[in-house]
């Protein structure tokens, strides 16, 4: 339709028109974000940008300096070159692909960037420690733990930390100041060429941008004895500096945190394209409560917001540098990003009490320091009419030293423990061919191959190990526009998760050979996007994992899990019936089970639904609310934890240069288990000794209030 309008306009005006219309297939990967007409004002899922004002089409022709020759006077004036920019909503590549814009991000309750992930449909976030420690994520039937199944990138820089001492693929969003996140691209499944390691459930791309044009400084206070200061200065586009500092006593026991972050980004035209450099610095000290036994809570022996461990705590630090460039090269579009950095992690925790050591307890210390670097290139080039080539290449690696040791009652390291040096490298490349046909059909297919190298040394024994593993990840997707507003999708893809490097250094014999975990996913769906005011869509998905290898952090053995299958469906609707009123809802249902036994994958919520809305009041004030419905979750061994209904609300108003903001988490003060596990523990020396698993919970926040004020210039 946009092309037709442009052509008609040009014909009528007899002027050349340059229509900046991006081809339908150009949303297939993340680089298109920069080209987007997306101004960050849309809401979750399918929101469309208000069409931009078209450029003037009939400028006054300029009068000639001198009278033309008589013959020339009879000629019509020479055509004046015009440029007409036509912006249109770009179609997605899969039914589940989503974009969360700045307005949704700015109106959501948040204490840190971790909370922004809660806006992703179908994602459940469990923060079982204070701010600063990475959260646990669930998506599409996967318990991704700290990031083992969800790839997360910031401006194209992958943040998953493979072989992390605390959890494989550990994600730390420290330094990503939430005000600087202008949007989140969501790619569920592993259907896209640019998705790499840990994208077995999907990929989340966080895009940074100046929170605004000008300067803002603000502070907020919360009912958890929370204080936060933040400031930013930006050009309204991609250049900004932002910082935050937080201290929070937290709700309940052992949830205090102090953290700070500084994020700077500069974007400018370069070499015919656009480049950016960014730097992020962060540090955090956080408490780590141990999950409480449900039977102790029910017996009144411990509060829901208590902690079975009175000394759990940790700290992290990171410096991250990145640079990127995108532009037109050889008839195509190239996007590149490179990164380097270093991070540290330390955690002292005891989640099992006195189960293993009835005298000194089961406290352990985990420490790690790593350096990392990498680079990635993505190139898209139209070939023949209707054909588009996409290629990608990536090299990345890290080196780390890590230690895990038990601590006695005086927190003195015990003799036993593990200490390792690890280096890993990943080199990957791939290509797809996309084809537009018949005016409504788009088909793309290809594959990516990764070679992963592992080097590990057990410092205590001097034992070395080296290995190479390969991953082949085919992908294919089909999109068909049934009508202008309705599109149907089909996709298949393979994701992969590398094994941990420590898996190649077994402490004892008996484990299985460490190997790549590969997941095969498929999706069918449809979207209906008739206007800026309505978006509806849904998808059915399935994922099969033939065999996962996981590393038990106690024995050091690599273990194999039986095959799992996940199948589910998700749907969403976003509607803006009035210019000031936005409503939406999304729901995901999934069955995640072990194939042979039929037993559920522990911890995965079978139902996750949200209803949200926001009202923009006169003067720019707003009120927003988000209602989360979390289904009862099956746990290991047949245990279960109850579901939850939680309402968050937020309101904000601008009074001249002042911005006032009020957030209330858990409006009805529901008592709910944000995370739950089934395992054996012995909370105190006097507790009965039992090796039988019991339900433990990490609670969701009670009702908490935060009031913020900022000055914006």
């Amino acid at each position: 339709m946009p092309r037709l309008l442009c052509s008609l306009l040009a014909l009528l005006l007899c002027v050349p028109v340059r229509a900046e219309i991006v081809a339908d297939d150009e949303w297939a990967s993340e680089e298109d974000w920069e080209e987007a007409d997306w101004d960050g004002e849309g809401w979750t899922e399918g929101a469309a940008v208000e069409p931009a004002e078209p450029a003037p089409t009939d400028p006054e022709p300029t009068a000639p300096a001198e009278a033309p020759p008589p013959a020339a006077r009879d000629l019509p004036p020479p055509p004046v070159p015009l440029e007409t920019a036509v912006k249109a909503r770009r179609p997605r590549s899969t039914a589940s692909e989503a974009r969360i814009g700045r307005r949704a991000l700015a109106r959501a309750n948040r204490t840190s960037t971790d909370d922004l992930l809660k806006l992703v449909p179908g994602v459940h976030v469990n923060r079982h420690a204070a701010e600063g420690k990475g959260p646990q994520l669930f998506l599409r039937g996967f318990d991704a733990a700290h990031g083992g199944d969800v790839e997360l990138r910031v401006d194209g820089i992958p943040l998953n930390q493979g072989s992390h001492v605390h959890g494989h693929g550990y994600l730390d969003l420290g330094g990503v100041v939430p005000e600087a996140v202008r949007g989140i691209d969501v790619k569920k499944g592993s259907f896209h060429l640019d998705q790499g390691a840990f994208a077995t459930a999907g990929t989340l791309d966080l895009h940074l941008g100046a929170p605004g044009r000008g300067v803002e400084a603000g502070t907020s206070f919360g009912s958890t004895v929370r204080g936060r200061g933040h400031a930013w200065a930006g050009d309204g586009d991609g250049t900004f500096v932002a910082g935050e500092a937080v201290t929070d006593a937290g709700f309940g026991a052992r949830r205090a945190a102090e953290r700070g972050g500084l994020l700077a980004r500069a974007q400018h035209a370069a070499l015919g394209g656009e480049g950016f450099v960014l730097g992020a610095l962060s540090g955090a000290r956080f408490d780590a409560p141990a999950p409480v036994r449900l039977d102790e809570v029910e017996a009144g022996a411990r509060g829901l917001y208590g902690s079975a461990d009175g000394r759990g705590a940790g700290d992290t630090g990171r410096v991250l540098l990145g640079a990127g460039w995108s532009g037109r090269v050889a008839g195509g579009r190239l996007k590149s990003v490179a990164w380097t950095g270093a991070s540290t992690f330390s955690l002292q925790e005891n989640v099992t009490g006195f189960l293993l050591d009835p005298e000194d307890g089961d406290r352990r210390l985990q420490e790690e320091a790593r350096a990392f670097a990498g680079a990635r290139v993505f190139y898209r080039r139209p070939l023949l009419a209707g054909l588009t080539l996409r290629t990608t290449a990536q090299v990345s690696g890290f080196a780390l030293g890590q230690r895990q040791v038990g601590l006695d009652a005086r927190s003195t390291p015990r003799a036993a423990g593990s200490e390792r040096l690890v280096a890993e490298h990943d080199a990957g490349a791939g290509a797809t061919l996309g084809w537009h046909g018949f005016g409504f059909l788009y088909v793309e297919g290809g594959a990516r191959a990764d070679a992963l190298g592992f080097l590990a040394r057990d410092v205590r024994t001097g034992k070395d190990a080296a290995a190479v593993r390969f991953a082949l990840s085919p992908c294919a997707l089909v999109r068909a526009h049934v009508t202008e507003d309705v599109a149907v999708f089909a996709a298949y893809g393979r994701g992969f998760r590398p094994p941990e490097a420590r898996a190649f250094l077994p402490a004892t014999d008996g484990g299985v050979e460490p190997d790549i975990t590969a997941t095969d996913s498929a999706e069918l769906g449809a979207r209906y996007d008739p206007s800026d005011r309505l978006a509806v869509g849904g998808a059915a998905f399935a994922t099969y994992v033939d065999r996962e290898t996981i590393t038990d952090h106690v024995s050091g053995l690599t273990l194999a899990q039986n095959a799992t299958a996940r199948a589910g469906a998700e749907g969403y609707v976003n509607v803006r019936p009035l210019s000031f009123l936005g409503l939406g809802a999304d729901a995901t249902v999934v069955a995640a089970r072990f194939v042979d036994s039929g037993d559920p994958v522990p911890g995965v919520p079978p139902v996750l639904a949200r209803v949200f809305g926001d009202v923009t009041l006169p003067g720019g004030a707003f009120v927003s609310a988000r209602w989360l419905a979390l289904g009862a979750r099956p746990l290991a061994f047949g245990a279960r934890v109850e579901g939850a209904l939680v309402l968050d609300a937020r309101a904000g108003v601008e009074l001249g240069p002042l911005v006032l903001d009020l957030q209330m988490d858990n409006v009805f003060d529901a008592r709910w288990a944000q995370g739950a596990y089934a395992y054996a523990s012995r909370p105190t020396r006097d507790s009965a000794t039992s090796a039988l698993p019991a339900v433990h919970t990490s609670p969701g926040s009670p009702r908490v209030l935060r009031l913020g004020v900022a000055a914006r210039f």
Partner: protein
Amino acid sequence: MRAARSLRVTPSLVVLATCFCGGSADAPATERALVVDGGRAFTATTDLGFEVSLDRARAVVASVQLTAGGETHASLLAPLSAALLPQAYAHPGHEAGGDVLGELAGRLVIDFVRDHGAALGAATLLFGEYDGANVTLGKANADDVAGDDPLLGHSFELAGVAVKDGVEVPFVALVDQDEGRRVLGAPFAAAIAEDDGPALGLALRLTSDDGATAFDGIDFSAHAPGDDGVVVLRADDDAGARLKRALQRHEYWAVNVQGGDES
């Protein structure tokens, strides 16, 4: 006793319908009586040709744990229970791995020869498919046995006769194990899915499935008998050490379903 509930998977629609209903609950469990399984002849022929018969086989057991392999396994060559227990991943409870799902806690002094069928207590078992058992050994203390009991200070008392070439050698073996020494992966196969069921029996075996015996390598005739004509095999000699190592191995232990069939 925990509330009983079937572990079997319900159809997804039913799961969906009940997804917001009901509270949290620990895993369903039941109790089973644990008895002494001594209903076998305690005889064995060793690799050195001795026919060993026991008329006393006493052991100090600190606890019995029953395990299920779950969805996680190490390799065909090594039982998972030998490696993992107790579970403690980065976040315990994530994985449906091999774990202790049943237990009988409490110190026991068991005479496997003379106390066949005697009740040891009620073991708590979660519903599940079991494939192993662990036995924690101890040393008899003054609370366990009388002051003049020969087992006092020891983990095992095995007494009987070893016969070779018509020569009988009465013997007593006093075997010491470290307090808390665990025997991992003793065979136990049962599917526990309901409240009522047959008792389980804890058995000490002299002969393993591959024909080896706990007394292999012990030359009874090389030991001088005492004044009473009884050879005493002590922990600090080679024979005692062999017995000590043998009795740490899961091949000489078992938990069996008594009478009924819960496979």
